[in-house]
């Protein structure tokens, strides 16, 4: 992180678009023409003209373009990235090396099964390892992301209940839930009943019991929840749902806090998803790809997405005939390349290493919480798990908001925490340091946050106009939404 009170912007020129660079006829591709043009084989009426405005660049200028763009991004290897609920831990290099082996990267999903035994074995073993870690009985690695895992899980619940008479109508979702929970419920044909967490930031069993009836299919719960708090009533909450014949869905986004500490499968959870791009170290890639395997208890196993992979003797087989299955949620085998990285991570760390991950994630979060508690208001005065949440109530008196604090952190060379989420916290600042950070980095972050708290008191304008050092200053989001410009078009070479 940079020196105290940084205010100078790095005035690098605004980069051109790839379409505004290059020269007509230029290409990086060397590939000789082959006899028999397309027109000999395909009717001319079906062929297009050249694509107007398509890029025309050499290889070096293309690389320079994208290298320069990359320098306008923060990333985990250049900045501390304590984005709450996202688990921005180190993404190990060995995972990347292994995922690029031709035996993983250059294989085709529709090749015969006997030529894919290593891949099927990897998926099958990963599913078993995830089941062991989560305490669930079976896992399907097919869903492509956490949100697709949620949708899959709800479909399993729907199929299970339908077979027992009725799919029911509603899903209970706490007010602290990720937005994907209610969105997935709707997509699965359910209505959403929102419930409130109590003044300690957790869900009470009586609150659930009050709305729980035979129209409720399931409760979706996140544990630890998005306030970074362990849902300590989880067993009673699950019992309240089960009493009325409903099921419990666990959003496993925060599994990084639980390894070796508590297993969702022991809590009364029936279905859950896991985010391999969070707990299991696969890179976020600027917004995907991830993977969202789904785990279930035995009662729901038959409904898992098809096909299943099973081991018979020494052979791994694809089982397509799954009569009760909800069907396919994704083509082929899901995001296999992500599965390879997660598998590599789990065998690298082993049981002890994984437990150490969660313990150190808790230690780092509590260290930050302690370091900042005198300067920022703690949202809930409860012991935190892997992330801690503050409000902007103290700074608000100086007219400084969470958004301002977040933008000012950028000047200190630090990615901001997740902000304004969960919605129940006033100006939430949700900080998840993860286990892979050193105490020195945490100290620098704490110092930066303290410095900003001081700036808010002494020079609020400096904070309110931040960031001052980033390639661009605050962007006009209202203008972007009012008159959306979603693509470049030929003939338009400047910003307007």
């Amino acid at each position: 992180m940079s020196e105290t009170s940084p205010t100078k912007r790095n005035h690098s020129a605004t980069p051109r678009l790839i379409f505004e660079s290059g020269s007509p006829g230029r290409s990086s591709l060397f590939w000789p023409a082959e006899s028999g043009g397309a027109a000999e084989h395909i009717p001319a009426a079906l062929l297009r003209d050249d694509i107007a405005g398509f890029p025309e660049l050499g290889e070096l200028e293309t690389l320079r373009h994208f290298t320069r763009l990359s320098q306008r991004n923060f990333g985990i290897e250049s900045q501390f990235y304590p984005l709450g609920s996202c688990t921005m831990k180190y993404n190990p290099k060995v995972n990347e090396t292994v995922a690029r082996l031709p035996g993983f990267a250059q294989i085709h999903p529709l090749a015969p099964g006997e030529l894919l035994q290593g891949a099927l074995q990897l998926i099958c073993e990963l599913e078993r390892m995830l089941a062991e870690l989560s305490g669930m009985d079976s896992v399907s690695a097919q869903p492509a992301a956490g949100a697709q895992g949620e949708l899959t899980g709800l479909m399993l619940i729907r199929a299970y209940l339908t077979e027992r008479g009725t799919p029911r109508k509603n899903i209970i979702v706490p007010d602290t839930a990720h937005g994907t929970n209610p969105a997935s419920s709707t997509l699965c044909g359910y209505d959403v009943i929102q419930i409130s967490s109590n003044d300690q930031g957790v869900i009470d069993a009586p609150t659930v019991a009050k709305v729980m009836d035979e129209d409720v299919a399931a409760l979706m719960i996140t544990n630890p929840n998005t306030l970074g708090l362990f849902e300590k009533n989880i067993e009673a909450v699950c019992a309240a749902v089960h009493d009325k014949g409903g099921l419990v869905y666990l959003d496993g986004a925060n599994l990084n806090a639980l390894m070796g500490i508590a297993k969702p499968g022991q809590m009364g959870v029936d279905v859950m998803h896991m985010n391999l791009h969070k707990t299991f170290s696969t890179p976020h890639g600027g917004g995907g790809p991830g993977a969202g395997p789904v785990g279930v208890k035995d009662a729901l196993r038959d409904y898992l997405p098809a096909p299943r992979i099973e081991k018979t003797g020494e052979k791994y087989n694809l089982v397509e005939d799954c009569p009760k299955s909800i069907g396919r949620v994704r083509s082929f085998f899901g995001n296999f390349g992500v599965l390879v990285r997660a598998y590599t991570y789990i065998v690298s760390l082993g049981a002890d290493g994984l437990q150490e991950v969660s313990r150190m994630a808790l230690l780092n979060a509590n260290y930050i919480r302690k370091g900042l508690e005198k300067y920022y208001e703690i949202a809930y005065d409860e012991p935190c798990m892997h992330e801690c949440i503050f409000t902007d109530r103290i700074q608000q008196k100086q007219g400084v908001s969470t958004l301002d604090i977040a933008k000012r952190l950028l000047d200190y060379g630090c990615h901001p925490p997740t902000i304004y989420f969960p919605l129940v916290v006033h100006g939430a600042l949700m900080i998840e340091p993860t286990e892979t950070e050193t105490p020195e980095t945490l100290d620098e972050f704490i110092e930066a946050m303290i410095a900003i708290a001081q700036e808010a008191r002494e020079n609020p304008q400096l904070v309110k106009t931040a960031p001052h050092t980033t390639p661009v200053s605050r962007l006009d989001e209202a203008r972007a939404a009012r008159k959306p410009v979603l693509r470049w078009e030929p003939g338009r070479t400047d910003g307007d």
Partner: protein
Amino acid sequence: MRYTPQTELDQKRMLQAIGLERIEQLYEHVPQALRAHATIRLPAGLTEPAVKNRLAALASKNAAAGEWSFFLGGGVYQHFIPSAVDAVISRSEFLTSYTPYQPEVSQGTLQVLYEFQTLMCQLTGMEVSNAGVYDGASAAAEAVLMSRRIQRDSRRRVLLSRALHPQYRAVIATYLKNLGDVELIEVPFAADGATDVERLASMLDDRAMCAVVGYPNFFGVIEDLSALQSACAGVGAQLISVTTEPLALGLLKPPGAYGIDIAVGEGQSLGVPMNLGGPAFGFFTAQKKLMRNLPGRLVGETVDTEGRRGFVLTLATREQHIRRDKATSNICTSQTLCTTAATVYLSLLGRTGLRRIAEVNVARAHETHARLIKEAGLASCFSGPFFNEFVLRVRDLARLEKRCAADKIIPGIALAQWYPELPDGLLVCVTEMNEKEEIDRLVRDLSD
């Protein structure tokens, strides 16, 4: 291996600062009954060489392209990827960053996505594109869901071409079945391997929501989008085209040229390795008037406080983190690293290179097709025009597949598993990666 840097001394000092003595005190509030059953029964960790050996042993049990000759398509294609693509997406600023919620420090990703959206519009001839979805199959399902948002409640019939990728049809069925009001109806294919337009026309009426066809379709056949679009538009149904081989759009008239409503597809061919079918990305494009109904992320251009051009995520009021249960979709990823790869790939190939590679695919696929008929004595299954994939009738397929396997060739995809009416159908794909020597061996091994 370990990625936790806290030494014993660090831990002691940190605990002291917090006011605790032992790490276990940090989670004493977790119910004892849960903590007592949390033991992880997995082996101990490994050194880096041991990790690599273990994974290399698994990888060696798979048939990889290069060592094996693939004539496999069916939604996943072996194409040339310039080394520069992996160099860019291996940069940690692209690899490790999160969704660009903080635009001031995410201009790299945001500009790439804006360029990606532009490239997808150019490739498909459509007016707007989102920043990407999971894959081609979920793109197709999301397209049908989008049509459901746009069309009146009285229109709830979806006409799915039987020549659409069977796994895509399966995913569409999974996504739609819980909404209760949508009826999926299959449209047969004709003797040329294309969707039977006359049969489709007879099924279209004022209850039709949309029709979904492959372009090219699962058999590699180039559908007549002109006829399909006029049949659909005539009754107010939307036409959705689904492209599994986007390289074809470097040469074929794009969906947008036919005035269709929504054009989606799988992007793996554009610079992403096969990876057993994932991860890659789905692309999602539409007419501009449908913009506010799009699922997923959108990047838009704007300016900063000093008037400099910049990019932001926009129209977020469609999305789950704002709209929750009223969102257009639950999706919250755009497979950004894969769309970044596609952006670099298309920039490197460019206007002339994309066309060249597409032409080479056509040339090699058609030459192979002709030789398999003439020299190997196989019969063509369909008469429609194709890009780089085609279906042949191969008698005694299992025996010939064995012969090919002994020669480290995978000759294609047997269609009988999805199409009982094509018991001897073999879907063969030939790309720029299939050298003449491989094609010679394929022809020889498939000759009876």
